[in-house]
């Protein structure tokens, strides 16, 4: 086993990996930028090294700096978390060259799956169904238009190197193409330093279902069943759950088999995820494979009891998988809500800033993977994720009830968060019935929310009025001349303990 692991990440995911290392008795090395000196991942690690200025391009994304810290600290392995360098094959190459084990798949697997066009070809060759679209990045606007007309609007523009909804745009009609293409390219350029995009037919009313897989260096694979991630806004997942209400045991077995075949095709090692779109007829299409630990991995951990991060570390150290397929069972139901520093009542605008107070939820079946604490200032430079709240229940109904209860316990002040949004989703009839697709939030939910009558307007106004009343009174008192408050009695001073003269 490794004697020391460097975590090339920040925030909640760095803390998550540090927790696994702590439990395994492996010392950790954190890296941090100038704004992250106070961050939890620095405080939680055994060692921490400054790697540069706040922008990720000058710190968390600089391969040379991270390799340098690994060598100097004697770390034998690097866990990249998700985002930053997690799916960067150049980083994987460099680790290999420096004889530092990257906890994740090979550069070859990353390259194949990382270029979505190559990934499509690879899995299609293995007989896996894919969504109609181009196989190659498209360069000119004329070509984009021609292909879009060929496969028919609506179409999706996607960054070839993309992920996490960045560089991705839905184009409903020809008129929107120009501005969408410019934005997709510009976002792709700044997020991945690669502005190439490809085009795909947009499947209407799709559900997003993905399969978690694990592979070791000895050619063994297991799948840890599915997660459904159809609750998205701006094509970004915000709520995930396992099991999916639409997946039957037969479908699960078929999807699991296909996911393992895809992984085997690139001799995949470690934890990975095959994403699928499922249409109204429950036919599924391969979307992409994520060659990293996923944000939403905790829901799988909650229903299978398997610690995915520990498995990642063990297989990276050359051990065989500790589980066989027949050992994998989904028990109960788990839901995850991603809590972001964003204002749900202002179109989810990012809302970085100081967390002035914090109360985290607890009680049965609740897990909070957080990267913050009270008085932490959320920087503007990175993803605005605060924590991932996960609730487990014996069935979906109990999981929803627990999540609703936990969200109501969660208090974050100073910054706006998506907690209120999640409460509203947990109360939504369609969500409760499992009746939704990936357009649910944008198309159905907000419309229904707009028509909902709010119950406690009186209490809201009463409380605000009391606050104003007390502030005004305090203000009025402060403006009174000093004598009005009366002079302080010297006699009182002299009788205070510790102030009395001896003898």
């Amino acid at each position, binding site marked *: 086993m490794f004697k020391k692991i460097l975590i090339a990440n920040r925030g909640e995911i760095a803390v998550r990996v540090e927790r696994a290392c702590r439990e395994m008795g492996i010392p950790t090395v954190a890296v941090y930028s100038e704004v992250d000196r106070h961050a939890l991942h620095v405080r939680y690690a055994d060692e921490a090294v400054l790697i540069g200025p706040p922008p990720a391009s000058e710190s968390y994304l600089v391969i040379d700096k991270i390799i340098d810290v690994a060598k100097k600290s004697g770390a034998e392995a690097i866990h990249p978390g998700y985002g930053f360098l997690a799916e960067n094959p150049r980083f994987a190459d460099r680790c290999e060259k420096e004889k530092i084990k990257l906890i994740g798949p090979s550069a070859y697997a990353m390259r194949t799956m990382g270029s979505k066009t190559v990934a499509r070809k690879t899995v299609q060759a293995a007989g896996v169904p894919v969504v109609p679209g181009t196989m190659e990045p498209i360069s000119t606007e004329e070509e984009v238009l021609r292909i879009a007309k060929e496969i028919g609007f609506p179409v999706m523009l996607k960054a070839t190197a993309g992920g996490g909804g*960045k560089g991705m745009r839905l184009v409903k009609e020809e008129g929107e193409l120009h*501005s969408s293409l410019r*934005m997709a390219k*510009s*976002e792709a350029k*700044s*997020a991945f330093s690669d502005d190439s995009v490809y085009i795909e037919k947009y499947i209407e009313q799709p559900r997003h279902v993905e399969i978690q897989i694990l592979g070791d260096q000895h050619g063994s694979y297991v799948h840890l069943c599915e997660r459904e991630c159809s609750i998205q806004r*701006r094509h970004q997942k915000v709520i995930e759950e396992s099991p999916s209400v639409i997946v039957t045991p037969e479908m699960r077995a078929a999807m699991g088999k296909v996911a393992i075949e895809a992984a085997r095709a690139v001799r995949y090692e470690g934890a990975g995820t095959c994403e699928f779109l499922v249409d109204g007829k429950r036919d599924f299409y391969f979307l992409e494979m994520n060659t990293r630990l996923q944000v939403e991995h905790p829901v799988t951990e909650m229903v299978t009891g398997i610690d995915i991060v520990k498995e990642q570390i063990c297989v990276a150290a050359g051990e065989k998988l500790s589980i066989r397929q027949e050992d994998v069972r989904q028990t109960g139901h788990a839901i995850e809500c991603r809590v972001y520093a964003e204002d*749900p*009542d*202002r179109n989810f*605008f*990012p*809302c*970085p800033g100081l967390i*002035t*107070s914090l*109360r985290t939820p607890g009680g049965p079946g609740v897990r909070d993977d957080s990267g913050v604490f009270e008085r932490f200032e959320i920087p*503007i*430079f*990175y*993803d*605005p994720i605060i924590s991932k709240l996960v609730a487990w229940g014996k069935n979906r109904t109990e999981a929803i009830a627990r999540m609703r209860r936990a*969200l*109501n316990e969660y*208090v974050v*002040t*100073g910054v706006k968060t998506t*907690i*209120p*949004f*999640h*409460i*509203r989703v947990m*109360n939504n009839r369609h969500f409760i019935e499992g009746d939704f697709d990936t357009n649910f939030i944008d198309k159905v939910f907000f419309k229904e929310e707009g028509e909902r009558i*709010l*119950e*406690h*307007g*009186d*209490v*809201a*106004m*009463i*409380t*605000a*009025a*009391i*606050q*104003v*009343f*007390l*502030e*005004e009174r305090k203000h009025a008192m402060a403006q009174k001349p000093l004598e009005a408050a009366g002079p302080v009695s010297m006699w009182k001073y002299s009788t205070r303990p510790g102030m009395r003269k001896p003898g």
Partner: protein
Amino acid sequence: MNYIGTIGEKEVKVAVRETGVARYSVTIDGREHLVDAHHVQSSVWSVLYGDASFEVDVQGKKDEEFEVLIAGDCYKFTLMNEQRKALMRSGGKGAAGKAMVASPMPGKVVKLLVSVGEEVKADQGVIVVEAMKMENELKAAVTGTVKEIFVKEGEVVESGAKLLLVE
């Protein structure tokens, strides 16, 4: 004290009276509510209304918009002193057809889509601001001419910063 509360277009009369330690009588449009209210944590109040217990997160201050969160719902309104409200009524309204485009969050100006003197339509994208790796296209609220631009591409801006003026 007497206040005027404004919810959307609707106005209500609000009166607050202290009746004991952390006890208040609040009358809204003639209906009296008796509550026990404690400011417990940062912006959060614990309110007992009858036997019902509420956690109330109050953001905002007098004369500006309040955003109050209760059980995941957001209530927006303003509260103003009665006298001040009367003063405001007698005063004039601001110039029509002017609209400032301001940054709704701290971030970086990625691209200016218009230049000074250019004609723009309401709802037309005028500037792209990036925050936390997402690009957001901000739109003009009114149809008019770009009168002034206060920022440059690449500039880092605070929340609420003036970006450009359309008139």
